[in-house]
């Protein structure tokens, strides 16, 4: 079982902080317009940050994946635990992806597409760029090995 790169926690925490900041700013703005105390929105933002940090840590702790001989297995989720098994025969294509923020912290993610309607895109975040590329290439060779004609 592989774990994600620990730095992914930073990404998630920063995301939570940004969200909290936006919510807090809107709240403060509303509060000043209606001339009520700004304690509530600020408190809400602080609470959101706290929840976000805990959630990020738990999320990181629960995230596991492994690329087996014939399937990718993923385990994740804080409130709802989800375990997904994606047979390699079913993979349509594989992306490795880096957002601007990902590049800033030096991370990348791999997205696996199947024809399924629900597990249509399985994303493995928090990989180092080399790992993500490696994973993509490895999946590519594994997928070519298995018969592509069964994909749908």
């Amino acid at each position: 079982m592989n774990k994600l790169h620990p730095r992914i926690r930073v990404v998630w925490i920063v995301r939570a902080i940004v969200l909290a900041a936006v919510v807090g700013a809107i709240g403060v703005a509303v509060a000043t317009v209606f001339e009520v105390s700004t304690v509530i929105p600020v408190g809400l933002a602080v609470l959101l940050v706290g929840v976000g940090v805990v959630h990020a840590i738990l999320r990181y702790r629960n995230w596991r994946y492994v690329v087996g001989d014939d399937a990718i297995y993923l385990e994740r989720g804080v409130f709802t635990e989800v375990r997904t098994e994606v047979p390699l025969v079913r993979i349509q294509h594989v992306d490795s992806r880096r957002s601007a923020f990902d590049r800033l912290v030096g991370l990348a993610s791999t997205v696996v597409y199947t024809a399924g309607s629900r597990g249509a895109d399985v994303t493995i975040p928090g990989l180092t760029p080399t790992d993500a590329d490696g994973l993509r290439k490895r999946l590519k060779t594994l997928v070519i090995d298995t018969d592509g004609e069964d994909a749908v």
Partner: protein
Amino acid sequence: MKLAPRSVPYRALQKSTSLAITAVFIASIGSEIGFGGTQLLLGGLGILIVTVGYEVAYYQRFRYDLTGDTLDIRSGVFSRREREIPYGRIQNVDITRNVLQRLVGLSAVNIETAGGGSTEAVMQYVTPFEAKRLQQEIRRLKKGDTEQRSEVLDDQSGVDASDDQGEVLFEIAPSELALAGVLSFDPRVPGLIIAVFTGSIPFVSPIIPIEAPTLVLVGILIVLVAGGIALAWVVGAVSAVINYWGFRLTRSDDELRYERGLLQRYSGTIPFDKIQAITISDNPLKRRTGYATLAVETAGYSPGQANGRGSEAAVPIASRDRVKRLANEISPYDRPQFNRPPKRIRRRYLVRYLLALGVLTAVLYGAAAWFNATGEVPWYLPAVGVLLTPFAAHYKWLHRGYWLGENHLSTRDGFWSRETKLVAYYRIQTVIDRRTLFQRRWNVATVIADTAGSLSILGTDAAAVDIDDDDAEKLREELTSRLRTALADRRKQRRNRTPFEWLEDSTTVSGSPESDQVVEESSQTVDDEDDTETDTVDPDQDTDSDTSSTGTQDSNPDSNPD
């Protein structure tokens, strides 16, 4: 090949009519400016000329060709598009004709592939004969035989000859059609009525006597509501009858054909290969009277999605036995003996219902207290439901379950609207095992077998809900392993089947195949042709996989005893 020449005037008229309507609409908005009759006439004439010109150009530009392995379409007047669709990827070929098109002898052909939310190729319009020919040719080319063209074409003396091809699986009986109509209720109608009604309140309100006694007002309201429901019901019944008029399903060796519709005739084919799941649904009333509904899911966009759930081959209602027989014909399955969730889960449902009732009662009490009317309003009424909760919990549990059959996973869920789903193992895309916070408290999990079906987008995948933790683990592993063996079996079958057809036509391999090796190799090339992938790269990779991919699996065709 080109479209039918007759499509030019038809399309031009169609387009100019809609343009004219828009123009009139716009003109009516700006009516203060004041258009004269001659101006309107000239404008209409101008629109007609422009559209005719456009449609002539469209007709001239539109070309389609059935090549050896792709359907090529070149189209577009201003921006041009060339599209090649490999036959192997085509999910279904649909022909639709509305009343007008039937009168003038035109058909629209829609070609769907998996993936993508829209129709991949639209041919508006070809002659009915050409439409049928396309359908049959694509079917034939998909199988990969390019040799027997002349023979097949000779077979087809007329359009209607092909209608009778294949064995009839299902034909809707008049009584069933009537029943389908009676049971249909168009939920869009009440919405529409409400929208119209609320919009027209200012006009209606003067008519209704405000000073009238409450009883009269209530009476008017009841009449209005009843009228709305009756109207919705009539509209639903009429549309169901029109949609399913003359519904029939036929099968040829590897395809399902459906036909339905009174005003607009839908017909199409679904290759058995592409069927993702079969859903049988019923409700307490249908269960009691022995009826059920059947839907066949395929991947990709389905036509007629506007009228409900969008499954091409949906049997609106038929006796339970007929539905089961039909499902069995489409995909033979063994009678499921459902494994129910553990009994303790009934307590969870009980708790859930009690909580819901408690919340409802509390809200009612709160509202009553707010208006100081706790004495008059029977806020405690929902609490009576407590008596029913044990039964509700029991029945919820009773109708849930899953079953691992020979070739299928069956799942069942729901009391009021019960759905039994059949998913062939080789159709499963991913297996998902979910546990919410509450499920973890009860040590249960939900296992979802995701397919590429189009209905699944609504979140109605085959799911074994609330099964025991350990069972879930086992089920997940079992499903993936069965998926692999089923795929390997199918591959083996395909390999065994294709070579001989191919060898008969082939000139490169002389003499009969003496060893499995020859068959093996030739089948590889056949597969490549089917897939329309580059011939140079694939065979190597394919053979690589045959030797390297996990010798333990049946997937290794070299270990094939045949």
